[in-house]
């Protein structure tokens, strides 16, 4: 059955049918071809995913991010990131990295981050003398830091397939996110020094920087509040996501005074659509996962890998290579939901912690978002910067190298993700 599933799914993908639809249709076609199992399984599996209480966190984390970044707070955050980095060599480029970290604490979507930051920062960086391809490469790679900093939508999805606590995953993402950001900032500084590019904007005083930090503080506090809420059991992840929306609404209404019905309406509809996109993939992956489990594919795969590759370090390397390849054509949610159930039992057999595996998966697939020749943040950033894919790709390699080093570090040093 699984072979038919893979063939039909690949054919549908080649026909440009969206991934969510392709998963549902391929699974239905496989069951119809098999003939003995009722098609009702498709409806039942889809229904079961809609009954997952933790998944209610998805729309509300998205909505909180949209509410916070769509108003004055987003503007203040960007000002803070811009001014705080201005004094350093390569500062304008590093602004994207810092902004990705601070926006990551509010939003949970790399693609939204690439679009929101790129449209504001790339034109400014180009005016400062940075080549378009370099601005695009920096924006495409930095946006992925967003999915390591809590709240992270891909980590919530991984918790669904692995059963690992969302709090543990969110905590584990912080250090890799900071490592990646540090590496990218050093890369930006090195590139600016090597090419002799100086910022023309005057650096700001400490008082102005402090004022901007105070104005941005409510957003900078959000990931900390989320982690504290989860760690101390104040509320469940779903309730925390709802409280994040209430926090964003309160700040917008009382502190920044920019809350309107239109903004609320827009944020809710936007999060509804994004939830529909992600949940369709979750529902489709659930049926596919059911068929793969029916065929005992995860268990057989784990047995085959451990029999073929005896060294656990080589198994981890093989997983990384496979994830990097899969991450190129396939978007994050389907890749996590399809490979998670296969990799989690494999990780258990080689003694790899599921939290560490979650970070390895998310980072690998995040790198896939900017790996040429296919990559969503790569395309968005190149389009905003008006650079060709070749120009962006040429400038991408130093950032890609840093990301690979961080990936290797979290793959082989458990202390970076389990603490």
């Amino acid at each position, binding site marked *: 059955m699984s072979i038919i599933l893979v063939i039909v799914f690949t054919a549908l993908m080649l026909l440009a049918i969206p991934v969510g639809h392709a998963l549902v249709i391929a699974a239905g076609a496989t069951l119809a071809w098999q003939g003995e199992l009722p098609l009702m399984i498709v409806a039942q599996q889809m229904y079961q995913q809609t009954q997952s209480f933790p998944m209610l966190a998805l729309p509300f984390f998205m909505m909180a991010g949209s509410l916070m970044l769509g108003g004055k707070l987003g503007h203040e955050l960007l000002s803070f990131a811009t001014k705080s980095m201005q004094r350093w060599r390569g500062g304008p480029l590093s602004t994207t990295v810092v902004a990705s970290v601070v926006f990551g604490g509010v939003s949970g979507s790399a693609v939204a981050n690439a679009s929101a930051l790129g449209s504001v920062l790339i034109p400014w960086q180009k005016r400062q003398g940075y080549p378009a391809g370099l601005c695009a490469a920096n924006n495409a790679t930095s946006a992925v830091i967003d999915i390591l900093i809590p709240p992270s939508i891909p980590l919530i999805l991984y918790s669904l397939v692995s059963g690992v606590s969302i709090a543990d995953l969110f905590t584990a993402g912080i250090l890799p996110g900071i490592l990646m950001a540090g590496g990218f900032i050093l890369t930006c500084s090195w590139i600016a020094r090597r090419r002799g590019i100086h910022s023309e904007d005057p650096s700001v005083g400490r008082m102005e920087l402090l004022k901007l930090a105070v104005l941005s503080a409510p957003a900078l506090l959000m990931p900390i509040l989320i982690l504290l809420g989860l760690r101390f059991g104040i509320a469940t992840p779903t309730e925390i996501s709802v409280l994040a929306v209430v926090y964003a609404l309160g700040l917008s209404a009382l502190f920044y005074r920019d809350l309107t019905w239109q903004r609320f309406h827009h944020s809710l509809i936007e999060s509804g659509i994004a*939830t529909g996109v992600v949940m369709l993939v979750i529902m489709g992956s659930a049926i596919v996962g059911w068929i793969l489990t029916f065929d005992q594919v995860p268990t057989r795969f784990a047995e085959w890998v451990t029999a073929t590759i005896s060294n656990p370090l080589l198994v981890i390397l093989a997983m990384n290579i496979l994830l990097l390849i899969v991450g190129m054509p396939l978007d994050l949610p389907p890749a996590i939901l399809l490979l998670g159930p296969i990799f989690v039992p494999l990780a258990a057999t080689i003694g790899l912690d599921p939290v560490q595996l979650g970070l390895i998966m998310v980072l690998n697939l995040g790198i896939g978002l900017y790996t040429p020749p296919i990559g969503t943040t790569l395309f968005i950033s190149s389009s905003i910067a008006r650079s060709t894919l070749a120009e962006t790709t040429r400038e991408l390699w130093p950032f890609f190298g840093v990301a690979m080093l961080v990936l290797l570090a979290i793959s082989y040093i458990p202390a970076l993700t389990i603490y």
Partner: protein
Amino acid sequence: MTRVAPLPHHEQDLATGGGALAVANVIDRTVGFACRAVILLTGIALLAILTANVVARYVLESGGFRFAQELPERLFPWFIMAGVALAVQKGGHMGVESVLSRLSRNGARIMLLVGFAIIIASYAVLAWEALGVADIVSIEKSPVLGLSSSYSYYALALGCAAVILTTFALALRVALIGPEALPTPDPEETGI
């Protein structure tokens, strides 16, 4: 990944594509309005129930509302399926378009239409199956509010119907205008 041009205005449609495009516009407006209304109503209800429950847990001796888990579980499928259908309309569902982008305009048009036909047929079967399961589980009631499990399957079936209608409207546009009639997705709505 997806391309390209804004949807044509109603007047332009009438000038270039006639009645079929007017039908597509009516379908889009109707489905769009219904889905937005469902997202707003269920979204606000979910927000209110879950917030009230956190507050109640720390204020009431009972430790929160007994219905605070089962009511959201009944509302969430409606919120999701409305989002799924609206995402079809706005081009939010992402696909791999490497083959499509290498085809001629007519080739791409034919390939897209084949894809739309497969989606419409498959979702018609799925809607039928969902209604069948809704009938079977109608006797299952939630413990506190006594809500039937059928409601969630009705959401699935109606969501499929909305996807069919929206895909049909997209197919009409692509058939009459060409592949450039595909909507451009908003990065904020991809959920990645």
